[in-house]
C-alpha cells in the first residue's frame, strides 16, 4: 500500500512536469519613481491599460497593484496589500489582465478578502473561473421588472416597504441604530428561499465582522453566504475594490440563473476610501473634498443589481447598500447621491430607537419604489389596509397629544394604532416567516387584537403563533405554497384565533 501510494505520487509529479509548458513572452515594464501612502508612480509602462494589474518585484516578494491614472510619461498605481516592501527603482511588470477575482461555488460559506483569498483559516478555495471586478451593468433588453419578493422576515419591511428580487433598497441611518441588524436578519431569513447571500464589509471593525460571522454560522446562514471583508486596518485600495469584487462574485451566480442578495456595509466608508485614493492621485477635490466622479462610483456599482428575464437566465441581484449619516443629516453629499440611485430607502430614526421601537424604521420617510408588485397576494391583501392604519395613527397621535376629548371613532383608531406599533416591534435575529406575518396582520386589521391590552400584545403574538402552528398549520402551508389567503381559510383563521383567546385571562372585558 505504502509503495503503491508512493509510486502514485511520483507518477503524478512526473505528469505535472511533463504537462508544464512555459512560454517566454515580451512584457511591458517600468520603474517605481515615487511611492507613498499606497500609491506608486511608475515610469515606463507605455502600454498600460486602465485598471490593469501590475506586479511589483520587491525584496519581500511579489505585490500587486492596479492602474488608476494614466499620465504622459508615468502611470499612477494603487498597491493592493502591503506596500512597505516597495522601493524607488523597483521593477513593475504589467500583466495585461484587468483586475479579476476568483468566483465559483467554492466561495459559498467562506470569508474572503476583496481579492478572493480565503482569510478564515480553512483550506484554499478551488478556483473555477475569474471574473473582472468592473463590468458594465446588464442592458435594457436583458432585464425585466421586479416581480418576486425578497422576504426580509422583518414585519415592518415586508408589510410596508416590500423589497423585490433585483431591487436596490438603501438602508440609511445614524451609527448604532440597527442598520447592520436589518441586513443580517434578512440574510438569516433567506434560509430555504433559494437565495445566495454575499455580505461585503467595508471598513468595519474586525471584531464586529467576527461577531457577524459567528452569528450567521449559529443561524445556519453560512451555508449559502459569503463574507467579503475589507477591514478597518486594510489599505484603502482594498476598501475601494471590495464592493466591486463582491458584485463580481454575485454575477457568477446571476449568470447561472440564480438569485443573489448582496449587502454593502457600508458605502459611506467606501466613498471615504475612494476620496483618500483620489486625493493621493492628485485628482481635484469637489464638494466635501470628494472627487467629481463619486456619483459614478456608486451608480455603476448599484446599476449592476438587476432582474434578468427568462431569455437571459432569469437570475437576479438584489442590493442592500447601507449608508451611515452624521447626526441624521440625510442631505449630505453621499446620502443624497445614493438615495437618488436606489429604488427606495429604509430610514432608521434615533427618536424611534430610543422610544423602544426596534427596528426603528420610520414608515413615513421610508419608501420602496417597486411597491406591492414585490409582495405575495396574501401579504398584499393585509398590508394595504395596515399601511393605511399606520398612516392614520401617525396623524392622529400627533393631533391627540393636545386634545383630551376625542370621539369614539378616533379613540378606536388610536387604540388600534398603538397595537399596530406594538406588533411592528421585533427582536434582533428573530426574522419571521411570511405566512406567520400574514396571520398576525390579519388578526390586527380584523380587530381580533382590539381587546388585548397594549402591554400584552407581544405576549399574545407569541402565544397565538404557537397555537396556530399546532391548530392551523394547513393555513400556513397554503399561504406558503399558493401564496394566497383564501376566504375559507380567513374564516378558519378567525375561528382558531378566537379559540385561543378563550383560553386567555388578560383580555379587556
Amino acid at each position, binding site marked *: 500500500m505504502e509503495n503503491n501510494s508512493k509510486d502514485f505520487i511520483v507518477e503524478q509529479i512526473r505528469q*505535472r*512536469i511533463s504537462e*508544464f509548458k*512555459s512560454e*517566454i*513572452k*515580451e*512584457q*511591458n*515594464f*517600468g520603474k517605481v519613481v515615487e511611492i507613498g501612502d499606497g500609491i506608486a508612480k511608475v515610469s*515606463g*509602462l*507605455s502600454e498600460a491599460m486602465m485598471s490593469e494589474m501590475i506586479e511589483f518585484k520587491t525584496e519581500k516578494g511579489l505585490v500587486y497593484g492596479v492602474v488608476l491614472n494614466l499620465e504622459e*510619461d508615468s502611470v499612477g498605481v494603487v498597491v493592493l496589500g502591503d506596500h512597505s516592501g516597495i522601493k524607488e527603482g523597483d*521593477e513593475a*511588470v504589467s500583466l495585461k489582465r484587468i483586475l479579476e477575482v476568483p468566483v465559483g461555488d467554492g466561495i459559498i460559506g467562506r470569508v474572503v478578502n476583496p481579492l478572493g483569498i480565503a482569510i478564515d483559516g480553512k483550506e484554499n478555495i478551488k*478556483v473555477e473561473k475569474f471574473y473582472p471586478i468592473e463590468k458594465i451593468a446588464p442592458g435594457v433588453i436583458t432585464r425585466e421588472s421586479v416581480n418576486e419578493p425578497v422576504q426580509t422576515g422583518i414585519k415592518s419591511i415586508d408589510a410596508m416597504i416590500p423589497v423585490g428580487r433585483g431591487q436596490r433598497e438603501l438602508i440609511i441611518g445614524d451609527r448604532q441604530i440597527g442598520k447592520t441588524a436589518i441586513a443580517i436578519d434578512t440574510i438569516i431569513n433567506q434560509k430555504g428561499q433559494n437565495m445566495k447571500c454575499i455580505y461585503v464589509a467595508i471598513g468595519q471593525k474586525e471584531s464586529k465582522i467576527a461577531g457577524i460571522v459567528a452569528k450567521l454560522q449559529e443561524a445556519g446562514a453560512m451555508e449559502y453566504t459569503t463574507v467579503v471583508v475589507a477591514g478597518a486596518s486594510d489599505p484603502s485600495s482594498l476598501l475601494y475594490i471590495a464592493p466591486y469584487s463582491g458584485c463580481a462574485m454575485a454575477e457568477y451566480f446571476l449568470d447561472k440563473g440564480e438569485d443573489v442578495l448582496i449587502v454593502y456595509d457600508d458605502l459611506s466608508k467606501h466613498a471615504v476610501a475612494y476620496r483618500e485614493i483620489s486625493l493621493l492621485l492628485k485628482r481635484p477635490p469637489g464638494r466635501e473634498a470628494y472627487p467629481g466622479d463619486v456619483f459614478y462610483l456608486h451608480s455603476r456599482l448599484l446599476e449592476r443589481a438587476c432582474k434578468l428575464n427568462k431569455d437571459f437566465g432569469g437570475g437576479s441581484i438584489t442590493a442592500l447598500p447601507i449608508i451611515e449619516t452624521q447626526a441624521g443629516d440625510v442631505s449630505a453629499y453621499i446620502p443624497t447621491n445614493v438615495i437618488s440611485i436606489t429604488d427606495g430607502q429604509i430610514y432608521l430614526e434615533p427618536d424611534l430607537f430610543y422610544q423602544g421601537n426596534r427596528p426603528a424604521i420610520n414608515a413615513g420617510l421610508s419608501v420602496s419604489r417597486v411597491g406591492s408588485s414585490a409582495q405575495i397576494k396574501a401579504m398584499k391583501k393585509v398590508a394595504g389596509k395596515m399601511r393605511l392604519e399606520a398612516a392614520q395613527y401617525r396623524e392622529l397621535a400627533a393631533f391627540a397629544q393636545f386634545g383630551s376629548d376625542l370621539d369614539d371613532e378616533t379613540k378606536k383608531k388610536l387604540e388600534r394604532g398603538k397595537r399596530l406599533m406594538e406588533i411592528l416591534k421585533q427582536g434582533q435575529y428573530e426574522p419571521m416567516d411570511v405566512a406567520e406575518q400574514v396571520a398576525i396582520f390579519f388578526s390586527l386589521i380584523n380587530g381580533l387584537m382590539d381587546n388585548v391590552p397594549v402591554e400584552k400584545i407581544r405576549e399574545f403574538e407569541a402565544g397565538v403563533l404557537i397555537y396556530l402552528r399546532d391548530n392551523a398549520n394547513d393555513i400556513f402551508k397554503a399561504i406558503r405554497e399558493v401564496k394566497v389567503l383564501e376566504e375559507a381559510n380567513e374564516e378558519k383563521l378567525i375561528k382558531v384565533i378566537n379559540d385561543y383567546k378563550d383560553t386567555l385571562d388578560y383580555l379587556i372585558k
Partner: protein
Amino acid sequence: MKIVAKQYAQALFSEIKDRAEKDISSIINNFVEILKKDNCLSQMEKIIFYFNDLWKKEYFLVEAEINIARKIEPELKKEIVQYLTKISQAKKINIIEKENKKLVGGFVVKYNDKIIDASVKNKINKFKNSLIQ
C-alpha cells in the same frame, strides 16, 4: 508659465541637433546660464533624462541590458542583437552585459520599457505557482 524639464530638454535638443561640434559647448554654456537665471538648476537630472530619450529616438538608438547567469557566448549575443534590431527597428544597439548568478540559467533582456524573461529562475517560479494551484 513655468517651463518644465521636458520643454527644456526639447529646446536644448532642437538647438544642438545638426550643429557642428565647436558650437555645442557655447550652446550648453548659454543653456546652463538660462537655467541659472530661471532658478531651475535642480531640474538638471530630469532634463538629462528627457534629453537622452529624445536623442535615442532621433538616431534610432536602443540601449539593451542583458542579465545572464554565466558569461555570454558570442553566438547568443549575436542572435539577441539580431532579434532586437528586428523588433525595435533600431539602427544601433548598445548592449550592457550583467552577470547575475541568482538567475540560475538562461537570460533576461531589457530594452526601452520591454522585458523578456527567459531565465530558469522565472521558469521555476512559474512551475511552483502551477503546482500550488
